[in-house]
């Protein structure tokens, strides 16, 4: 019987051949925590009797969820993390880097075939470089920091094949939103997802990261792009056993939007109605990379946002920000009436960075539109691609980017 990617990686990490349904103890290669999950992970590690990290060179703390620090309470938590990292001599990125997942990939801290545990649900992003990466809570991370291990149930796998090429104005985000709408928010709960086919193989690593990032929004444990795999020992076998195989045709894809208040409430932009848009947010580990800002700048070039709209752009990292400055994208966004935020999670998690008012509609390139997500439970959050977001910032209503691009 052939093995899936998940079974192959976990067999290596468990030092025995394992199959879906097995409960195994596995070696963890890389551990990451943010300022939301880090403090409790540190307390758990210490309460477990931890004195020294099992892998100090592969334990990473990144301040991103509430940066720059908005108040004294969070300042105390940031300080706790800084001091712990100083004592342990582990890997630490302060507020001058960016969103944890972008930083992990930029700094080359994740490799093909690695088993990565991150104290953030979007840790599943690293399937774009061929890692088996999954989100965990703080205490579990504390356990891995102590032992270098965790336990896992070997997941069944859903394989999603995309064939063909995307039409103009349609992006990776539209594809993953379409899939989430079809599968729903618990469609692949506990399962691993393999993204396969020539359509996904055409995606750049940045686009692959957008897709893998949102595997958690269908309930998945991890997602992996098969096109990222170079090690034949990790490639799923031809006779691997899948829980289900789904097929999509890229040429049939259209711009999609997730409507309030669940990610799986997905419609084509043209069917979501002429919703007014008060605030447009472009950023996050899903869609705040250089290629995203390039698309946004191309759409905004020589235009101005609608007077009724606030446009907030938050590059995913300082590196992205510097490159976007070099390419002139930031200049274009500012000239079009946008506001640039400090790289980090910013408004995506509603702790700071432009919280919306009661009854306002936000169009965001992030990954979640749950009620209250952006700090106000009386606001409505819609999710889309950067192209749809930029186009809607110009018109002031939810707009199919193909209408603006063709003008």
């Amino acid at each position: 019987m052939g093995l899936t990617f998940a079974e192959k990686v976990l067999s290596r990490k468990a030092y025995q051949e394992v199959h879906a349904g097995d409960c195994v103890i596995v070696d963890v290669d890389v551990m990451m925590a943010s300022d939301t999950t880090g403090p409790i992970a540190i307390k758990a590690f210490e309460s477990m009797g931890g004195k020294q990290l099992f892998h100090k060179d592969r334990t990473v703390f990144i301040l991103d969820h509430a940066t720059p620090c908005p108040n004294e309470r969070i300042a105390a938590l940031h300080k706790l993390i800084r001091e712990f990292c100083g004592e342990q001599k582990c890997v630490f990125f302060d507020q001058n880097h960016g969103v944890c997942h972008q930083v992990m990939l930029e700094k080359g801290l994740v490799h093909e075939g690695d088993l990565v545990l991150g104290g953030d649900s979007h840790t599943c992003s690293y399937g774009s470089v061929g890692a088996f990466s999954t989100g965990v809570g703080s205490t579990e991370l504390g356990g891995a920091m102590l032992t270098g291990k965790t336990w896992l149930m070997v997941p069944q796998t859903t394989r999603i094949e995309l064939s063909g090429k995307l039409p103009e104005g349609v992006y990776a985000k539209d594809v993953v939103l379409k899939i989430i709408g079809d599968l729903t928010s618990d469609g692949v709960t506990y399962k691993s997802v393999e993204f396969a086919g020539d359509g996904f193989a055409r995606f750049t690593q940045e686009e692959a990261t957008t897709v893998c990032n949102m595997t958690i929004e269908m309930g998945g444990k991890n997602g992996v792009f098969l096109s990222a795999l170079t090690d034949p020992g990790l490639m799923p076998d031809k006779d691997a056993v899948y829980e289900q195989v789904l097929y999509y045709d890229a040429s049939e894809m259209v711009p999609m939007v997730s409507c309030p208040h669940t990610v799986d409430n997905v419609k084509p932009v043209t069917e979501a109605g002429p919703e007014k848009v008060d605030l447009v947010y472009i950023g996050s580990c899903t869609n705040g990379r250089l290629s995203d800002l390039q698309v946004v700048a191309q759409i905004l070039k020589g235009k101005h946002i609608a007077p009724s709209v606030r446009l907030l752009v938050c590059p995913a990292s300082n590196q992205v920000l510097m490159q976007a400055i070099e390419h002139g994208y930031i200049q274009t966004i500012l000239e079009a009436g946008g506001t640039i935020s400090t790289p980090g999670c910013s408004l995506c998690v509603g702790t700071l960075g432009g919280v919306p008012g009661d009854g306002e509609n936000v169009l965001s390139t992030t990954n979640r539109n749950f009620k209250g997500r952006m700090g106000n439970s009386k606001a409505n959050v819609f999710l889309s691609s950067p192209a749809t977001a930029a186009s809607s910032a110009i018109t002031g209503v939810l707009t199919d980017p193909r209408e603006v691009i063709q003008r």
Partner: protein
Amino acid sequence: MSKALVYGDNINTDLVIAGKYTKTLNFEELAAHCMEDLDPQFSCRVKPGDVLVAGRNFGCGSSREQAPLAIKYAGISAVLAQSFARIFYRNAINVGVPALICNTSSIQDGDEIEVDMTQGIVTVNKTRKIKCQSLSPIMQSILSAGGLVPFLKEKGDFVLD
């Protein structure tokens, strides 16, 4: 006497505890805001030992362990749902909150609930019995230790019994 506090499907961790409240090590503060955006009366309604009951996919979304911690410090003794999102499921067990999968469709808000952890049986209003899906052996060991901290403090490493 434990009462059921009943909610629907797909209750995400942002609804259990909003992101703006998660940055704290004072877990009583989390409890004060538990379920706030879904049920503003939750913190007044909940009594120590009460049982939180939900439908499908409870705890979807963020990895924030502050969600099961908010529930625990609010006094909830167990969470019953038809299914759990995987990170929440692990987190709940890791902080010592029983998360049990069973058919919750007939449980009404305010019903009297008794949970027999050893048998995996939920008794509703002293009469109706509902069988829970059993936890995996390692999850049972972690839960009976009181969570992952006491489990690893005692064993020093992950072990499969």
